[in-house]
């Protein structure tokens, strides 16, 4: 019996040993599972570290493409490359982390934050030095910034992200005040960057078209739907030159310094026109003499790729051509003033539609404010071109900061 008992015990010892092995395996697997989760988290943080360091290098020096090679961090290493992508102003940063023979990558595309991303940028100052009040019926359909106090009366609607430097001042809020479709943030400072137009003018010199005007010379531009541009200078009666836009201004920038631009037509391509004024008293104005549009409305045609930037040191003028419907497609930027409607007190009443954005310190009236048969000038409708959220006309003025266009991890 004793022998049997001993054999029994030894037999069971062996069985428990086997079970113990299984139990040990479960424990090991559980530990391995936890460590695999740790490794996947740690490798992600290593790649993130590389991506962050690269973004700040590009921020500090936009031409930085050196990258990082085998930088040790937190038990692993990261390698980072930075290469141009799309337009020369965009950078693709790829950060690859290696930990325990595993790899993980984060890919980022960053680009300068363009002022064209705003449907409206202003200072809250109106023509004549008064204050701008957005009122019931006014609608801004894209991002908007006021480098001052945002003033409202009644219930204007701001559908995009709205920011202001000095808060909001709302009056006549009964029965309702302003409506924000996205968010409102105060305390944000986004000033126009001085020297932007000089930089743009230099870009035109590098690989665009630039005219340094003398003796009152101006540029007369007609964009043609077939992708060409007809240009006369220095006078409206000068012999025209017609060329494909890509030949006339390969990098898409057409500039005149110390002169004015007169422009209309159908834009087929991506172009920024600039009326700069570096000295003297003449120049720096863009005059829009007729409808200035794309072949199709980008709000309804997702295949539309044309983009127009209209940049001026001073006014951008809607010339009086007696039309009751006037359409401009593009993002308008004035460094010192804003959009001006010529003869707003006498020209026929109608509608001025801007598909794009309006950036300028001063918001001028576009009509005489009259009603019925006494009304003259235009109702202004700004319709945001949503493509400008992530894209911009060539070398359009930027805020001096970068934005993430895409972040893939």
């Amino acid at each position, binding site marked *: 019996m004793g022998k049997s*008992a001993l054999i029994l015990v030894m037999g069971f010892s062996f069985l428990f040993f086997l079970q113990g092995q299984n139990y040990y395996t479960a*424990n090991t697997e559980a530990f391995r599972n936890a460590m695999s989760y*740790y490794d996947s988290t740690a490798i992600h*943080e290593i790649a993130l*570290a590389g991506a*962050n*360091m690269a*973004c700040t290098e590009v921020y500090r020096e936009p031409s930085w493409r050196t990258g990082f090679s085998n930088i040790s*961090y937190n038990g692993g290493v990261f390698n980072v490359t930075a290469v141009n992508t799309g337009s020369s102003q965009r950078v693709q940063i790829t950060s690859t982390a290696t930990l325990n023979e595993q790899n993980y990558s984060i890919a980022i595309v*960053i680009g300068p934050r363009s002022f064209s991303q705003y449907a409206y940028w202003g200072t809250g100052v109106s023509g004549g030095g008064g204050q701008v009040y957005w009122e019931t019926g006014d609608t801004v359909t894209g991002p908007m910034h006021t480098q001052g106090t945002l003033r409202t009366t009644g219930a204007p609607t701001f559908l995009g992200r709205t920011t202001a430097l000095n808060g909001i001042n709302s009056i006549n809020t009964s029965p309702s005040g302003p409506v924000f479709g996205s968010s409102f943030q105060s305390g944000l400072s986004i000033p126009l960057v001085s020297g932007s137009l000089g930089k743009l003018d230099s870009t035109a010199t590098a690989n665009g078209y630039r005219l340094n005007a003398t003796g009152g010379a101006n540029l007369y531009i007609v964009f043609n739907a077939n992708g060409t541009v007809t240009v006369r200078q220095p006078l409206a009666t000068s012999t025209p030159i017609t060329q494909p836009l890509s030949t006339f201004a390969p990098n898409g920038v057409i500039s005149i310094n110390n002169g004015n631009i007169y422009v209309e037509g159908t834009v087929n391509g991506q172009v920024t026109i600039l009326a700069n004024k570096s000295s003297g008293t003449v120049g720096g104005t863009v005059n829009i003499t007729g409808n200035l549009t794309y072949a199709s409305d980008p709000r309804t045609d997702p295949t539309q790729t044309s983009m127009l930037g209209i940049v001026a040191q001073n006014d951008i003028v809607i010339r009086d051509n007696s039309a009751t419907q006037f359409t401009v497609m593009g993002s308008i930027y004035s460094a010192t003033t804003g959009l001006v409607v010529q003869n707003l007190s006498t020209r026929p009443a109608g509608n001025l539609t801007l598909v794009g954005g309006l950036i300028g310190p001063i918001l001028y009236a576009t009509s005489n404010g009259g009603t019925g048969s006494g009304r003259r000038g235009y109702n202004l409708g700004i319709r945001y071109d949503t493509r400008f959220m992530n894209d911009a006309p060539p070398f359009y003025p930027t805020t001096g900061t970068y934005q993430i266009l895409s972040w893939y991890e």
Partner: protein
Amino acid sequence: MTILAMVLMGRLIVMVNENNANMGEAVKMSEYRITSISLAESYLEDAIGKEYDEKTLPPNDPPTVTASTCTAPGSLGPESGEAYPYFDDFDDFNNLDRVDTLRDLSGKIITAIFRVRCKVEYVKISGGTIVPETSAPTYTKQFTVTVTSANVLKDNFSYSLTSSNGGTYTPNVQDTLVLRTLYSYWRL
């Protein structure tokens, strides 16, 4: 022999029970490790959602902020009146030391109790590695989160052991989870 068998059986029972206790504890610790990893990741993500520095918060944030305008290395931490979780910039987490755990939807604690400690410091690249920078602000800060718990031990069990050479393992030494990341300044 029968008595011998019974003695052996008794010893076997004790050993198996001890082993079961150890293994049960070890499997549980793996679960707590997973929890501590997700806890650490939560603090990292929370920090990354903040502004880089108090000095880069609106309206102190013109497009030309330089590193030298940021908080001095010795002053990294929450500003007066700031308390977790209502921090407003990345380095407010510096020297955060708190007890954290998971509660189910009814508020009952359902996992181990963890101690979370955070450290934020400026760093730079030197000699192919990331090193702390203590003399002046830089454009990059490092966030280190450390999570420990009395229920997560280095040797995976709390019973004392004697090693083969006669030495003694020190049981009950808490295992430490460390996660780090970098956060840099570029104005969005």
